[in-house]
């Protein structure tokens, strides 16, 4: 325990130093919000990846992998192909150029300026500000529980201490502080996960023997899971079964596509100076994401093999039905003690890197987008006032996150990530992607798509998709039923419904509404 506390203290000192460095080199609003547009490719790639991957991606989804089996690796493929290749090589470059030409400092500002709409900027800002802290609360609660178990720090003390440490370097250091610390934290995560994979495969007898053992374990799948569509850990679930829909629509597509319109990730494309930096960041980002989700999922699945060999039980039985316990149990029971310390640091790093970016983007959304543009109508000022308002926004965002962490029920927190991902993609993705590629996309089309995507998502999550509807309780309260539809609608993710509607609205309304001025489009397309 002594060494663990020493390692955590050293880690926190390095984070504090990097936050301080970020603060020292932040002089303008551009520095504070988009890191001065001159970030190194390694820092950009690691920051993008570390922001993307939180503790829940490793512990929560690693545990889900132990349940669903290797089909979940399609999510890793989507993370690498869409979340990195498409995001960096296709969308990222145009985002960077458009952001530069329009002098956008935030994701809502990019949309607002592209469509010459203060409403889009203000509305997007408030949606991000209100929903980001719920997602952040899920991450904060997760790591505070983890610290409670590993270090014996009382839950509320850990939660507050964690939030205060983050507040210090995010409020003072701005995006430079956030990205420098992200790069350091990402490096720790990368090393930890590579060790975890190698150790696990060695323990399971090698790559192919481990997979073969998993294939041969199919008869161990509990009967109740077989009824839901489970066909073994080396097989996809039965087509059209509840497990198949959950795996495909919620886990694979929900997270895999949702990542493209995450404001805290999109903003990273605007932090680099040239396309060249994105080209150089791309391989680093892809290796990082493969090492994070790919390894977390693979190890999660292989815990079944190891647990069965050592204890004669599959992971679900070992964790007493709680899949969130699978990875911590594996680290505690199977991995050597020194690795437990490294894993703790990696989990601290994963949650801090995600939370810092969530706070930063929540704060800029409130300060820059909602208050300065949405309410005040917005004079663009690059001075200290913008930084002050944004800092205030970040402080409020952190406060809101702490309050949500303390008052929301665990059931709402458990679906917070899904709610945020679903909302972001249905609300922002059509306006964002079409705005980069289609000159004919209009202001009315964008507003309709943003509002339509948001409303349909909320309705679907509140009344139809069983997991969120059950947690939110709107349908139960108003209609006396936890969901208003039957199978398969109850297991089809909101994005499957809301995203096509949002795209449809964007295209149809744009075709029949007044175009943006040619001069403006010409300006937007100057480097696209």
């Amino acid at each position: 325990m002594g060494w663990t506390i020493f390692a955590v203290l050293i880690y926190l000192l390095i984070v504090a130093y990097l936050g301080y460095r970020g603060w020292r080199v932040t002089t303008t609003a551009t520095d504070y919000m988009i890191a001065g547009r001159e970030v190194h490719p390694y820092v950009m790639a690691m920051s993008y990846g570390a922001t993307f991957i939180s503790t829940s991606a490793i512990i929560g989804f690693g545990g889900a992998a132990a349940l669903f089996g290797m089909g979940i690796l399609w999510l890793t493929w989507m993370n690498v192909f869409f979340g990195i290749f498409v995001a960096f090589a296709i969308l990222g470059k145009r985002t960077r150029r458009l952001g530069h030409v329009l002098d956008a400092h935030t994701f809502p500002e990019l949309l607002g300026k592209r469509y010459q709409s203060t409403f889009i900027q203000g509305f997007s800002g408030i949606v991000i500000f209100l929903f980001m802290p719920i997602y952040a609360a899920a991450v904060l609660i997760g790591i505070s529980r983890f610290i409670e178990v590993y270090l014996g720090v009382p839950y509320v003390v850990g939660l507050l201490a964690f939030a205060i440490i983050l507040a210090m370097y995010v409020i003072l250091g701005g995006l430079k502080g956030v990205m420098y610390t992200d790069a350091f934290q990402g490096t720790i995560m990368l090393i930890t996960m590579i060790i975890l994979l190698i150790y696990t495969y060695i323990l399971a007898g090698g790559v192919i023997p481990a997979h073969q053992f998993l294939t041969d374990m199919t008869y161990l799948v509990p009967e109740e899971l077989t009824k839901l569509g489970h066909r073994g850990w080396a097989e996809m679930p039965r087509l059209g079964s509840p497990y198949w829909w959950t795996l495909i629509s919620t886990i694979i597509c929900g997270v895999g596509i949702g990542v493209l319109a995450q404001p805290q990730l999109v903003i990273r494309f605007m932090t680099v100076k040239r396309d060249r930096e994105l080209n150089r960041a791309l391989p680093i980002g892809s290796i990082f994401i493969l090492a994070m989700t790919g390894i977390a999922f693979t190890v999660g699945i292989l815990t079944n093999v190891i647990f069965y060999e050592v204890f004669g039980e599959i992971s679900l039985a070992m964790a007493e039905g709680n899949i969130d316990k699978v990875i911590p149990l594996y680290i505690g029971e199977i991995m050597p003690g020194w690795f437990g310390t490294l894993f703790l640091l990696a989990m601290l790093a994963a949650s801090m890197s995600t939370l810092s970016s969530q706070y930063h983007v929540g704060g800029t959304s409130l300060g820059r987008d909602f208050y300065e543009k949405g309410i005040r109508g917005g004079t663009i000022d690059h001075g200290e006032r913008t930084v002050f308002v944004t800092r205030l926004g970040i402080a409020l965002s952190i406060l809101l996150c702490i309050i949500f962490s303390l008052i929301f029920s665990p059931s709402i927190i458990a679906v917070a990530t899904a709610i945020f991902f679903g909302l972001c993609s249905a609300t922002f993705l059509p306006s964002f992607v079409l705005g980069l590629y289609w000159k004919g996309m209009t202001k009315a089309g964008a507003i309709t798509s943003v509002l339509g995507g948001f409303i349909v998502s909320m309705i679907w999550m509140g009344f139809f998709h069983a997991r969120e509807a059950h947690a939110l309780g709107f349908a139960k309260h108003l209609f006396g039923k936890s969901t208003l539809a039957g199978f398969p609608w109850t297991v089809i993710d909101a994005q499957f419904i809301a995203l096509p509607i949002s795209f449809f609205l964007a295209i149809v309304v744009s075709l029949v509404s007044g175009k943006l001025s040619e001069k403006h489009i010409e300006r937007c397309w100057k480097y696209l």
Partner: protein
Amino acid sequence: MLGISGWGCWLAYLFCILSTILCVIYGIAMWNRGIEEEDELEIIKWVKEEREIEEQF
């Protein structure tokens, strides 16, 4: 393949690795590309700043 019985699963395993290789090859092939038009942007920015300074005078 690879000891994995279901084709949907081994394909996923393979695609993860292939996609990463694609990203690495793309990154290496494009390592020094993507600087041209940005130089122009920098010049425009510089000219704009020069004009502003002149106007202030």
